[in-house]
């Protein structure tokens, strides 16, 4: 009888992840209290960062884990934005109620979309998602009640009615954006730790092998696609609550809602939960310091993307993880020696 069988166990957490969890909670407390210490512009910038973080995490789940490389997520961002405007202007709903409803509608509309484009694979799937987004854009451009191709503004009165005072309204918008990012991170984290997550990780590593283990690939991908669409639509509703104005070109902008998001995920590290967080920080540091340079700024973004893809194809976090095995979100299982 050997004792070695008892000296080892399977564990998910590590020292790094436990430290990260404590630090994460502390950071969250600091961020929740931002309306007390941050200026209006800082809160606005942080909100934008949270919303981009949500989009990036969702795209990462889609492309990095489920292998669904979509370049048409702007379809759901725009759809969510338009639903917010429609529900607020026509149904008289408060934006606070319209946002989750927009997310629900986004998930509902994603079902027929998924049935259609899941017939396509690889590059054809990517192009297909873009086509869907263009169909959405052209369709909303025909809805004259929502301004058609001209777009429309959210009446200022609707936004003012959200809260009793200006500072309360700004704090509410900020908390909504923060909550969105936390919800997205939590949903993805819990999903990846679940049975479905194990299946997704297997699909990420080898689709063929996982299918031979009896994983229903289609169903797993379908669930991820619909879930992502709903959360992306909710994020879209929040984005356009901040922008106050929506038009088909702005709502379904492939640059703003997909190209930048892919940049963030690729820079940070695709297929890791930490990657999008790193990527969003890098992206906003570049933007806040360089965007006044005009076209040069976009050139620099391109150069950074090329450099990272050549030197660190797994992204910043992917490379770090490869070298150190560091993982802040306890997802991987590892064998650890018991202390006795």
């Amino acid at each position, binding site marked *: 009888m050997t004792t070695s069988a008892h000296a080892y166990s399977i564990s998910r957490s590590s020292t*790094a992840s436990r430290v*990260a969890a404590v*630090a*994460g909670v502390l*950071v969250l407390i*600091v*961020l929740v209290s*931002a309306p007390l*210490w*941050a*200026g*209006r*512009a*800082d809160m*606005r*910038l*942080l909100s934008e*960062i949270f919303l981009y973080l949500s989009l990036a995490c969702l795209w990462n789940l889609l492309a990095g884990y489920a292998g669904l490389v979509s370049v048409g997520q702007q379809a759901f961002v725009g759809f969510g934005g338009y639903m917010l405007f429609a529900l607020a202007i026509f149904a008289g709903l408060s934006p606070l109620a319209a946002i989750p409803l927009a997310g629900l509608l986004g998930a509902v509309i994603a079902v027929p979309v998924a049935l259609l484009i899941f017939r396509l694979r690889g590059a054809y799937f990517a192009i297909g998602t873009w086509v869907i987004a263009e169909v959405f854009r*052209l369709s909303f*451009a*025909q809805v*004259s009640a929502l*301004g*058609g*191709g*001209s*777009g*429309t*503004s*959210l*009446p*200022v009165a609707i936004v*003012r009615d959200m809260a009793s005072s*200006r500072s309360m309204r700004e704090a509410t918008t900020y908390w909504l954006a923060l909550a969105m990012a936390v919800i997205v991170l939590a949903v993805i984290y819990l999903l990846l730790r679940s049975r479905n997550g194990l299946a997704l990780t297997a699909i990420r590593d080898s689709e063929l092998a996982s299918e031979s283990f009896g994983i229903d690939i289609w169903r797993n991908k379908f669930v991820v696609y619909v879930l992502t669409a709903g959360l992306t639509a909710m994020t879209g509703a929040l984005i356009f609550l*901040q*922008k*106050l*104005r929506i*038009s088909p*070109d*702005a709502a379904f*902008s492939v*640059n*703003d809602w997909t190209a930048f998001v892919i940049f963030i995920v690729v820079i940070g590290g695709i297929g890791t939960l930490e990657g999008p*967080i*790193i990527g969003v*920080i*890098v992206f*906003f*540091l570049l933007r806040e*310091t360089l*965007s*006044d340079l*005009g*076209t040069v700024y*976009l050139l620099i973004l391109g150069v950074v993307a090329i450099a990272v893809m050549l030197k660190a194809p797994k992204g*910043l*976090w992917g490379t770090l993880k490869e070298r150190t095995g*560091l993982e*802040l979100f306890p997802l991987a299982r590892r064998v650890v020696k018991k202390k006795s």
Partner: protein
Amino acid sequence: MTHLRKTLGISRRTFLAGASAGLAAPAILTRTRAYAANPVIKIGHVSPRTGPLAGFAEADDYVLAGIRQALAGGIENNGKTYQVEIISKDSQSNPNRAAEVASELLLGEEVDLIVAASTPDTTNPVSDQAELNEVPCITTDCPWQPYFFGRNGDPQTGFDYTYHFFWGLEDVINAFLDLWQQSGVAKTVGGLFPNDADGNAWGDEIHGFPPALAGEGYALTDPGRYQPLTDDFSSQISAFKEAGCDIITGNMIPPDFATFWAQSAQQGFTPKVVTIGKALLFPSVIESLGDRGDGLTSEIWWSPNHPFSSSLTGVSSKELADGYMAASGRPWTQPIGFKHALFEVATDVIRRSADLEDPNAILEAIQKTKLSTVVGPVDWSNGPVRNVTKTPLVAGQWQKGPNGFDLVITANRSAPFIATTGELKLLS
């Protein structure tokens, strides 16, 4: 201080993620708000410096340099001299980005007044942000209907904080009708209106071209809204051919017009007068059309021949345009006058405001503006709706001369004080 906090906010997240400290570039720390002995008034400026609308902003550097020079000594208000800081941001021709930089200016820089110019994609998102954040806002360079109705404006109540000066659809319709009447061609018109902010306003069944043309006895063939950046105008061209249209009008972006005009030539469609809004403003576009650019007609908002001069620097329209051509080596463009006038109005408002610390006092100064600018009089007491005042509009033709294309004023019925400089020639 705001920048410092911004950095802190980011670096906490950096810490969370355990990223290398090298990422937290301290570059953003460099600027903090200076509280000098001389009080400072901040004007935020949003303009499409890059992207498809960049032509509208190509003279920004020249105009802003002139304004900054004129304001170097500050502005006197109630016996106190204020330094003026103009903070200019690029919208990248993107309404999403325009809203974002506007909010950076309003919330981050805490500007006292925000100005913006060039098409509804810039003026409308900036105005919406200013309205919500209760900061006075002045815009120009966008017909007033897409500005006002495009923002769900109600003529009864209007907006509180946002004001606009430019011309409207009724003016462009009048100018075009005047031009066509001189041409003496048959009253059959083909309309090309895209499904975008301008196109929907121009083609509107109530406020746009269709009712106005019908009222003047013109038969309009309108094949419906086309999607911008389409690559096929065959169906429109055959509809115009079938109706025997002698006149083509509409509001297009330059690439769409180039496509339409090339396909018209291929398909043997030869109208006698082609008068298009927006697409034919810039000399570079006309030159890119080669010989087919000769004889096209367009609205003219401003030209070196306009009999106005700057209230700020005293330069005439001609001197302003010549100065730009000498500085840049490029031909003058119409937005130059309006960009200059925008800052004339802003300066005048700051000078007259009863209390520069109070947004409502600045607002009152805007409402009471009576200023003669380089693009004409600006006075919000006599606009078509609250928040809007109109500047004069004429129409004219691109004619090829010995020194390249020249924009000749041929129709001035609604603004006879702007002299015509030539006669209209038919295309075929």
